């Protein structure tokens, strides 16, 4: 199991009261899956993404990423885990404007302690793979939206993480470029990369093999649990009810 959440809760203190963003969520994602996480804003899907991406820690429950328990890790270890295991792709690309394309792609390797020569070679190879070799000396603001997102994907993949985590990757793109990016994710998945896309766009979710719906901090629907798969096969056409396990 690559992503393994068991009874994960995330509670934010809000003055005297508490705001519960996630209620004891259980999710298991195998290596090689293509999953979309859907839900309206405020449903807790962003919190879920931050937890899976190790930017945040659960307040309760257990989260194992590639077998490593994240909850007990300190900042340094968690940062290293992010660096090695997760490649982020964001809606607003999040490239560093002062750095050229090549330097942006290299950056995860810098924090990963990879030697300069090898960094350069690997970054060049990935730019080649996303078809942007010719643009490697350009600044992000000299690129189109689609090109920027391809640079971001190259950056996410440069350290060869087992998990690609995309947050509304097509949100700032027109539908044609959005399609191209989704095609890129599709190809990556076909080559064995685990892809998780957080989106509220049903068309984007269609690309994935499994959809997890989050509502009010709980899993409202998961097409990938064994029960749901069985249920879907038996009662084809019938809306499956909410599926989650109680903590304990």
């Amino acid at each position, binding site marked *: 199991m690559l992503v393994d959440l068991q009874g994960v809760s995330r509670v934010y203190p809000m003055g005297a009261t508490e705001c519960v963003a996630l209620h004891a969520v259980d999710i298991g994602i195998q290596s090689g899956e293509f999953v979309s996480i859907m839900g309206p804003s405020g449903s807790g899907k962003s919190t879920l993404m931050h937890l899976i991406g190790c930017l945040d820690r659960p307040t309760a429950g257990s989260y194992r990423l590639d077998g490593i328990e994240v909850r007990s890790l300190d900042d340094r270890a968690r940062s*290293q885990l*992010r660096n*090695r295991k997760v490649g982020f792709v964001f809606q607003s690309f*999040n490239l*560093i404007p*002062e750095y050229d394309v090549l330097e942006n792609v290299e*950056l995860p390797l810098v924090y990963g302690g990879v030697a300069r020569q090898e960094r350069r070679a690997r970054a060049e190879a990935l730019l080649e793979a996303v078809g942007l070799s010719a643009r490697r000396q350009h600044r992000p603001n000299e690129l189109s939206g689609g090109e920027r997102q391809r640079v971001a994907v190259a*950056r996410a993949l440069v350290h060869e993480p087992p998990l690609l985590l995309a947050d509304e990757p097509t949100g700032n793109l027109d539908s044609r470029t959005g399609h191209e990016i989704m095609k890129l994710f599709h190809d990556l998945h076909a080559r064995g990369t685990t892809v998780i896309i957080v989106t509220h766009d049903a068309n984007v979710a269609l690309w994935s093999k499994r959809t997890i719906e989050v509502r009010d901090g709980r899993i409202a629907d998961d097409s990938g649990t064994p029960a749901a798969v069985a249920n879907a096969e038996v009662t084809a056409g019938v809306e499956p009810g909410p599926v989650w396990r109680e903590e304990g």
Partner: protein
Amino acid sequence: MDLREMLRSGVKSLARHKLRTLLTMLGVIFGVAAVVAMMSIGEGARRAALEQIRLLGTNNIRVRAVAPPENEGEQNSPGLTPRDAERLRAKLPTVRAVSPLRFVESTIARGSEQPSAVAVVGVGAEYAVLTNADVRRGRFVGALDDHAARRVCVLGDEVARELFGPSDAIGQEVRIGDTRFRVVGVMQRTRVRSGGTRVIEMRNFDRDVYIPLETALRRFTDPDFPRHIDEIAVQVSRASDVMPSSLVVQRIMSAAHRDVADFQIVIPEALLAQSQRTQRIFNIVMGSIAALSLLVGGIGIMNIMLATVTERTKEIGIRRAIGASERDILGQFLHETLMLSVSGGLIGIVLGALMAFGIHLFAKWDTVLSPLAIVVSFGIAASVGVIFGLYPAQQAARKDPIEALRYE
């Protein structure tokens, strides 16, 4: 993140706002320049003082002739004479060497050449020992020269060069005033120039011409006071003897002069100590200005870095998502501040050296740029960077990565 990457990213972000970077560095530049200039002046003054002590002679007490007060009859006191020197030699228990001095302003010439002005000094044989003066060629004025009032002279370095150039002066004849003298020695060159930071008025020793005291008294006679001398130089054995001995000298002299205040006792080393206290006050004032400038400079740097951290919140978020730890972010911003203050420090060192050189040129003060000054001011600049960079860097590192990513 390795050091090289930190430096690279630092250079990039500082180069982005060149004017801002320069303005931010100004405080540190001026502060460090003040430190360097101050230390250069201090070191120059210290060396000049040491050289002065060496030239005036260590453990010296000088008795100088002064005009007696109007109402006290000149008849009561014979004035300062060679007999006073003999008296001190006989009665002062701690005495090591004594030399009476008589200063005559005269001219010197070789053959029929144009005469030039020199300070002729009538001295006793012990004068060279007393003042640590070294004879470069030949010998100094001896006791026999004095007894026989011989017409021999010892030339200061500059005088010898002027008259004889590179050729040997020993045995040559010169004309001092209207009298012929034979050159028996040439002095070693001294390194103290006249003017500038001198607290004790010092003539240019290199323009001195030494002749036996008796010769000076007979050949350059003052018709009113034929046996008067200008000064007696006394050397005592130990440094700790100088102050108590000066009191004894005072008593011996007062008794001999029937309490007429026609002499004055001067202790060169005490004057130099006084000058060094003045120097210390100067150092404290300059040091305070430098410290204030560095403080203001440091606060300026901190201010700009805090603004930079806020401005670059998004970048911090991106770096954190990619795998930067809090320590990486801390290091990145700390290095940036350090680069800012250290570059400011380097510019300040250059500026301070130029200031010291300028002071040397225009005020004729001795300034010495010591390696210590450079090391100290570089250290100060780096400390300013660390002290005032730590807080902004901590602010950057403590940013919540999720909040930082949302920042627009």
